[in-house]
């Protein structure tokens, strides 16, 4: 085995490890923020595999798409979830894998740095330009683990065991199939090193319709997302609330003592 081949094997193993460990971490860690970061690591690992397979443009494209995309997605998770930092999960029963990927999460205890709090305490209200984004977060985890007692805190569904079994079986089956049949009709051809030009020509030539279609799809996606996500200009318009709202109003958000302290300290400076 030459040095180049060894380097290739090394790169492949490292990248495969990153992508698999990243995906596994995403699926098992208790912190949602970490989940996102793990997923990003997995994407970057796969992008590295792409580059190893001489699809360098595609690999970079993937990294670019997902760094921005995942960061925004994690932001949404932080806004939406009870415990994005996983602080409340610290003393829950976990399996070995989960325990590993949740290692060293910031625990629920407060820091003493001048009224600052850990993630549970972020609230947008005290920020100058924090805007609406922070509000959602503050509303949901303002409670700081104290008032979440009655709720089902679990991040996973009751069929987690089945899911793990199915995943294992799936992986074993597919791997077995692949190992049983290692001979593919391989070609010895070398791809053109300037993949950007090749792809550009294909996109603007042969696959122009698909390209334009994808553009249209994105446009429609933007329209749809804006239409669904925007708040109505008319307060009594129930057209977008009628389908999902149940009769019981959502629980009132109470300002905990911590918030008040935080806000006071904020106004002080």
């Amino acid at each position: 085995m030459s040095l180049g081949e060894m380097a290739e094997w090394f790169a492949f193993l490292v990248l495969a490890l990153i992508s698999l460990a990243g995906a596994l971490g995403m699926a098992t860690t208790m912190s949602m923020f970490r989940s996102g970061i793990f997923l990003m690591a997995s994407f970057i690992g796969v992008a590295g595999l792409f580059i190893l397979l001489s699809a360098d443009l595609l690999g970079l494209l993937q990294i670019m798409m997902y760094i921005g995309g995942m960061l925004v997605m994690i932001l949404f998770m932080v806004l939406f979830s009870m415990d994005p930092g996983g602080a409340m999960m610290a003393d829950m029963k976990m399996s070995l894998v989960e325990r590993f990927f949740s290692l060293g999460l910031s625990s629920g205890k407060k820091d003493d740095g001048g009224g600052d709090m850990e993630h549970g305490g972020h609230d947008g209200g005290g920020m100058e330009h924090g805007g609406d984004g922070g509000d959602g977060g503050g509303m949901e985890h303002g409670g700081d683990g104290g008032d979440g007692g009655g709720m089902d805190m679990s991040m996973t569904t009751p069929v987690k065991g089945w899911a793990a079994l199915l995943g294992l079986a799936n992986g074993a089956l597919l791997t077995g199939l692949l190992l049983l049949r290692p001979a593919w009709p391989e070609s010895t051809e070398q791809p053109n090193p300037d993949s950007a030009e090749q792809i550009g020509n294909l996109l603007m030539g042969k696959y122009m319709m698909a390209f334009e279609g994808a553009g249209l799809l994105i446009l429609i996606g933007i329209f749809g997302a804006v239409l669904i996500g925007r708040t109505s200009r008319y307060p009594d318009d129930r057209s977008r609330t009628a389908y999902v709202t149940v009769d019981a109003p959502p629980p009132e958000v109470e300002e905990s003592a911590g918030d008040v302290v935080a806000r006071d300290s904020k106004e002080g400076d």
Partner: protein
Amino acid sequence: MTAGIQSALLLMVPILPLATAGGLALAGLFARSGDGRLRRWPGWVALASSAFSLGILLLLWGREIEVSGEWLGVSGLAVTVALESTELTYFLAVLVASISTLVILYSIKYMETEAGVIRFFAELALFVGAMLALVLAGSWIVLFSAWEFVGLASFLLIGFWYREAASRRAAQRAFLMTRVADMGLLLAWLHVTMRLHTSRIDAFLGSLGTPAFTEAELLILALLFLLAVVGKSAQLPLTAWLPAAMAGPTPVSALIHSATMVAAGVFLLLRLFPLYEASPWALTLVLWLGLAGAVVAAIVATGQNDLKRLLAWSTISQLGEMVFAIGLGAPLAGAYHLATHSVFKSTLFLTAGAVDHGAGTRDLSQLGGLRRSMPLTAAVFGLAALALAGVPPLSGFWSEDLIVAAAAAKHPALGLVSVGLVLLAGLYIGRAGVATFLGTRRSPPPQEGAGPKDPGGSMMLAMLLGGAAAALTGLLLHPAVEGLLPFAKESGAGAAWRIAAGIAGLVGLLAAWLLVRSKGTASLFEPLPRLLERALEAVPELGMRTAEASSFPLPRFEAALDGGAQAARGLVLALTGGAQRSEAFLDGVALAGVRAVEGVTELTERTESRVFGRGGDRAAELLSLAGARLRPAQTGRVYLYTLGLFLWTFGTAVVSLLFWR
């Protein structure tokens, strides 16, 4: 003039009105409705754009120009965008532009009291631009998009008074019926484009002599195009939308539903005439379709009491005559008649609008004696009516003469029928004119005071121009028409036919005068026109019921069958009703037919209630039982669904593994 400037000018022709439409639509968002003269500015803007287009066209007189560019080329398929000004397209473009200018001029005054006048002129300009693009189109894609835009503009304009239910319904009906027919055009041009790998129209016409298409293919293509023609030109059996479209404002009827849009179908036939020449079967079908449409619509027109509806049926009849002429293999006559008809029929509509405005009604049974209070209107109407009746030397005579000649050359019987058509035309238009303008007023105007009087301003100007054109077009055009169009002149008929054609219209007019004097506005062939009309009205009904039935099978199925049976029964009744008058012994046959149809209806109904009805009930019971059993499986838990999904996938993979070698 360099080639570049010529191309730019040609491009300006359709783009100018289209841009005006866009600008007016934008302005409509911000403009406040003023009053008085201020409200006329949208009309003047639209008029200017249309007149400019006309001016540019006249500037390009006698030049063959082509503008084309490849829009996109995908794997050997070139989608070209092209405009071309050849003899035929130039002729029609000038026609469209001049009539549009005339009608817009008329509407400035006509619409000045309406709300939404900006919208009206924006839509009108959209129509003009799209129509110009349609006639100048050099590639299928331009032709088709313009075709659809014309349909859209027509939909918007028919539904201009969208607060009235009748308007809305008429607009929807027109839109749906023409859309159904447009499927023919779409399928046909897509097929041609896929086959020839280019969307140029002349590439298709050029390929007709070569073995690029088989004979059967040509026949199918011709029939598909014919479907589009039938829809757009309101030929049998898709006539019902055109009379209903009279719910729109009168200038719209004048522009769209007499002169230009409905002529688009005939234009398509002319444009693709080589295709029909290459496919004799299709040409024969065109002939009989046109003839039947012309005769039926003319008979229906004799029974109409609403002035605008009468003119609408007359339009269908005249379009049928054009289609008939093309079917005879005389496209020159068809194109010529298209031109003259556009002029006099739009003039007739304009005067009808003036009558409506002045007298407050269009009902023949309430009008009468208007010649005293509206002398100019009466004169213009008279001129145009004489032209329609083919009285020499007015415009209609020359083109109808050509049609009669071509028909007589084909077969004397066809010649006789076409002379009969001229007679019928004289009859119905004479009846309309006499009942409106001569005699005395049959019912007092709705409000006392001003009373009917000639309109002023731009309306009168447009009407006078139209009247003059109706009188003179034929004389001016006749010596030159052969040079203007790319079709050869057919051998003229004998003098006898010419005289017969000239006299038939006069006879019709005279008969109408006598009839109205003796019998009032009662129609001549009653109840034939009414029955025919009802039968034709049943066509869209039939289509709609079938469509509904295919979406909700059981209950609608019955209704569809009922509707179909009733339509068929109406048709049979109508036909037998005509027979009763002339031939008594046919009664028995007809009655048997009616019985047979009734029997079929009853049988259908019985089958429906016994078989389908009860079967449906059983099936529903079974389904609800099964549903009750299966309901617990619906847990509402997404993760269970995904678990099931992937379990299924996994199972499939395992099973496929068992068969794997």
